[in-house]
């Protein structure tokens, strides 16, 4: 199970800088595992109980055993890694989805509360991805907060501890970032 040559941590670092090869490698190593776990969890749990960190946690355990995992956790990188992995999964799915949509495999889509219309989700995700990059150059900490909160599913308290700021600061940053991103993203539909 752990024959992969490049450590995932490194892949993640490289992928985060946009290295296309690392992305591809990451895709191959983590992505199938993530997906199968996600599928299984989705079936086993109901809405809301699935948490990204669990998911990544399990992925790492499966891919690299407990040593690699502990290194990550010890240095506080787990959250960041979880966020990157989830962002990657989402964006990648959204791209594929967009491609398929043009092929026309989806039609009328029913809606459910709180959900983006499924047909708009891929473009929303891609649009968020772009807006995040702008946010990063304007305010790094806000950017970080979004990664941790939205993608990694961390609590305010955890984020505060991780970034070594107060809860209040995290809440403020999140509010700012959320408004910024919504304002910058392509409108839905």
């Amino acid at each position, binding site marked *: 199970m752990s024959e992969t040559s490049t450590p995932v941590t490194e892949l993640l670092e490289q992928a985060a800088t946009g290295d296309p090869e690392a992305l591809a490698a990451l895709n191959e190593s983590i992505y199938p595992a993530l997906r199968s776990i996600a599928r299984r969890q*989705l079936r086993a749990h109901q809405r809301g109980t699935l948490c990204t960190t669990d998911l990544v946690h399990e992925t790492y355990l499966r891919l690299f055993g407990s040593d690699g995992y502990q290194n990550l956790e010890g240095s506080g990188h787990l959250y960041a890694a979880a966020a990157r992995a989830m962002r990657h999964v989402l964006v990648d799915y959204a791209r594929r989805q967009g491609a398929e949509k043009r092929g026309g495999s989806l039609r009328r889509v029913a809606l459910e509360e709180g959900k*983006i219309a499924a047909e708009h989700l891929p473009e929303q995700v891609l649009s968020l991805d772009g807006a995040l990059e702008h946010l990063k150059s304007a305010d790094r900490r806000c950017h970080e907060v979004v990664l941790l909160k939205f993608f990694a599913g961390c609590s305010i308290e955890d984020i505060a501890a991780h970034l070594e700021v107060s809860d209040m600061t995290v809440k403020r940053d999140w509010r*700012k970032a959320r408004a910024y991103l919504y304002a910058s993203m392509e*409108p839905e539909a």
Partner: protein
Amino acid sequence: MNSERDQAALALFEQLVELTPDAQRDYLDREVTSPELREQVAQMLAADRREAGLLDLPATDHAAQLLDLHTEAPLPEAIGSYRIEDRLGVGGMAVVYRAQRDDGAFDQTVALKVIQPHRVSAHWRERFLQERQILASLEHPNIARLLDGGVAEDGSPYFVLEFVAGKPIHEYCDSHRLNLRERLQLLLAVCDAVSHAHRNLVVHRDLKPSNILVNTEGEVKLLDFGIAKLLSGQAETLTMTDQRPLTPEYAAPEQYAGEAITTATDSYALGVLLYELLLGSRPFAGESALALEQRLSGRPPRSISRLAADTSEEDRESIAAARQLTWSRLRRQVQGDLETIVQKALRREPERRYQSADGLADDLRRYLSGLPVQARRASARYRLGKFVSRHRVGTALAAGLTLALLASLGVALQQTIQARAEALRANQTRDFVVSLFEYASPDKNPGDRLTARQLLNLGAARIEQELGDEPELKSDMLVVMAETFLQLGIYDRAQTLAEEAVALRDASPDLRRRQEARLILARARRQSGDLPGAEALLNDDVLENTAGQLRAALLVERGELARDQARYDDAATAFEAALALDRAQGAPPADVARDLYQLASLKVLTGENDQSLELMREAGNLASQAQGPGATLFATIQHDLGVLLIQRGELEEAKRVLSEVRTLRRQLLGEQHPDYGATLKELAGIARLNGDSEAAEPLYLEALEITKAALGVDHSETANLHNSLAVFYRGQGANRKALPFALAALAGARSNLGEEHPTVGVMTANAADLQRSVGELEKASELAHRALAIQLATVGEEHHLTAVVRNALAAVQFDLGDFAGAEDQLRSAARVFRQTAGPDHPHLANIENSLARVLLTRGKLDDAGSRYQVALDIAAKALPEGHATTAVAALGLAHVAASRGQCDTAAELAEEPLAVLNSQPASRRDVWEPAAQDIAACKG
């Protein structure tokens, strides 16, 4: 995008986000020169108010949805006895397939909807089955029929619908180049289907073109009742998920605001659809957050000329061509009745829309038959309503009486703060005390029910008798009793007992015990008004050698004393020290919450409302975790939070918070408790500001009843409520009903504040104005003169409150025919008000209007004209379109023209302001009606 601008936008956002939307707009317009930056911040602020979107669900949820969407999963071969042929659509809750019945009996294509495998929890199952049940209850040619239902092999429920091979209605209309009449006919079929649902108490809630298909025979079919709502016939509370916005372009404002969903919710979506079918665009420009903001603020849909400006000529002509018209003909056909119908369907307030699809259908039929449409009748009122909804708080502030309300609100909050801080302390001992008396009563007082006070007195006597030789225990009991008396507000008894406890414990070697007793005594002295006595107990060395929770409690008490002595800086220092200490020592959440609450309350007194709000929220969060006595504290904090939110105009949140407090307080305190009454009063205020007078009135009256019974008729809270009711009825135009409340409020204010107080002056003037309005001119005159005397004695000539009072006096003099006297008063009022409140203050327009009216009556037409013009200029600048003050000024100019014999001009000038004024239920008719009559008489 550039990151410098982004940084500026983030900073500005942070600075403005806690302000009201109006204040935000003002600031942006005034201070921010770059249009791009202004737009970006406006969009961010609008986005901040939006409830749900991509970022508001965890990424995993979206991942789950994308995984589901990923259509690599093979089609199931069959479900039940249906052969699956294709996937028609996938949603969060369900998948829809095209299928054939497999038993060969019929060759029929159907749509089969099955719940998503991961939505098998009870909640989603119920949802899904509800849709099926709703569909089963509906039978209408324009609603896709339910054919069958069952449970698949894996246990997932499914149902089978008529398969509709068709196009979304707008595409159908365009591709068939339907003209307006044909489009309206189709929409009428939609309305019929929706009304059928409405008659069956079903609200669709997600009407939009993709759910309204037209098949090849040209028949409309309404689909997807997946989020439809069964109305229970009563107002119902909706769960959070029910409140989420759905399809942004079609969702009604109440769906965003989380307000009640009614059949009028569907009327709104139909209105959007009507606009779109007529004009080929959606009613609000763009689909950005700004468009949403416009909708929520009650702005009417884009006018056709606006739409034309937003659309290229080429697009315009192609839109018109799809309707077999030119743009200019399309424009002519839509302008007028159709546009009015659209406006009525799209009103912000559900109660002002078509109440159901039937109402809209009726008006469309009337239009098609060339009859006058119903929507026309209410449109002048609409223009006013639009303003009211956008500026609820502003409107309320424009009413003269509100000046007094504001003054009393400050007092009320202050008293609340002082009274409540104690509540939390004694709670934990209350049980103990009650148990002490458990065996005290039945035998000794057969048949009598003891009041809490009697019980406590009995207990105090027993302490004397039974514990005389046990000083430690006796002092413990005394401390407990003293705290309980304090909590009941019986300060003199508390003080006596605490003195005794201190005397006993001063002999104790235990410093802690000595200080504890001193703390109680200090509190009792402070509360009974003996501030120097309290101060003597709380000198600096009281803190020496003291640590832990007692130290924090002493710090808080020092802070409260400083606050009561108006030494706010000292108070803040003490509260902050207590807070830091409690945090450092890991005190229970209730203690930290208490410290935060004290600090938050103090910030209200010092006017630092933003900080107060933040602290109050934090205190509430903490107190919500606290057990037992913390619940009372929690209710107190949340109540005050609600009041702060009202002050900021955040009525939705305030309502939510205070409704919770109401429930909590009913449980904790019962319905006779004055605190419960106080919460009702705030809820009434919210209803009033929301224009929901039907809800406000009973709440006010109940609050008054409770408060009067609990605190007495002279208590300041009772006086506040009388005042609120006076403001409320006066706002309704019910001056006769308002008058007794205004007089009662005045009496209460006098007994609380004394005769010589500017608030009493304003309230006296308010009472005078009400007396005048019901024709009691002598009483009015007496009150108005008294009011002026009070103001002159307290705030002096050069004060805006004096100007306000002079304005009221002048109105009385005018009615008495003393025009010269009125002119003097008003000239003085206008001068002072302009100097003190500024030349743009909207109330100045009222004063100028009054002055102009006097001048006109005295035949000084030139003067009158220029004064009306001044009023009009101020009002046009400071008040929104359609405001009564603006209309009165405009009508005044017409009146001047009429007085000069320019009857045609006058009639023309009067038309618009009269439309506005006639639409107002009662406001100041006596002021403008004579002018209207003169103008009419002139024309003959």
